[in-house]
């Protein structure tokens, strides 16, 4: 059974690679390369895969999941400038893709066995989101 918890955080970022010129960054990332940054209300959906416990009837205690998401994602990232305040984005471009992978990397150690971490979906806007299911994943919660 899949269970999904949604949290939100707001952060600013600049998408520009140090390996490229200002013109190249502008051509690649468009307005997202504007040097002083801009922000989004990110929505994060984290999906776990497991069986409901016979006693509790729960796949995972959602209070605990909320705490994990707050500690690993919301508290460190909410109302922050990702490039300046949240490693590794001082050296990794904080695209939606890279941010989803970093969130997976932070959360994954909390789920060593069952339930397992199934998917991270990160909405940068209502009209743009990425799904990441780990290195072996096919990138999508809809399998």
């Amino acid at each position, binding site marked *: 059974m899949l269970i999904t918890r949604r949290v939100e955080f707001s952060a600013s970022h600049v998408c520009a690679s140090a390996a490229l010129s200002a013109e190249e960054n502008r051509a690649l990332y*468009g307005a997202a390369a504007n040097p002083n940054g801009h922000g989004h209300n990110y929505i994060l959906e984290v999906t776990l895969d497991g069986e409901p416990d016979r006693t509790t009837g729960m796949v995972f205690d959602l209070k605990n999941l909320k705490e994990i998401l707050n500690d690993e994602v919301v508290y460190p990232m909410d109302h922050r400038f990702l490039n300046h305040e949240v490693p590794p984005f001082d050296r990794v*471009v904080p695209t939606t*893709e890279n941010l989803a*992978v970093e969130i997976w990397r932070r959360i994954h150690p909390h789920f060593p066995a069952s339930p397992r971490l199934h998917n991270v979906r990160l909405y940068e806007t209502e009209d743009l989101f990425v*799904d990441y299911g780990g290195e072996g994943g096919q*990138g999508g919660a*809809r399998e």
Partner: protein
Amino acid sequence: MIRLTRRYRFSASHRLHTSALSESENQALYGKCNNPYGHGHNYILEVSVAGPIDEQSGLVARLETLDTLVQSRLIGTLDHRNLNYDVPVFQSKVPTTENLLEEARRVLSAEWASAFPNGRPLLAGMRLLETNRNSVELTTLS
């Protein structure tokens, strides 16, 4: 692999009617969607791409390339149109959500290789919402 989904919006009118059926059969099958003067929807098209994240750019796809492809080949031909009259394929096909998604897939698949010549990313899925309450989806495209 990571999967990125982009949503595009367009508004169009249509009428569901097939010449293979009688007036009363059309009405029974399509209900209000068969009303003779047509009606419209605010459609949402979701296009999903999948591939590895490019190490230097941090991107799975250059969004501008995807947006230009979808806007020029699809949205531009559908937005604020009457599907039955203005989109040639629907002169012979009923513009159901299903057929509209099949047509959108055909168009994108045909253009994909020239828009993304190095084979990345893959076109991984498409979903078309006719309203907030009904949608159709193609899960495997490549």
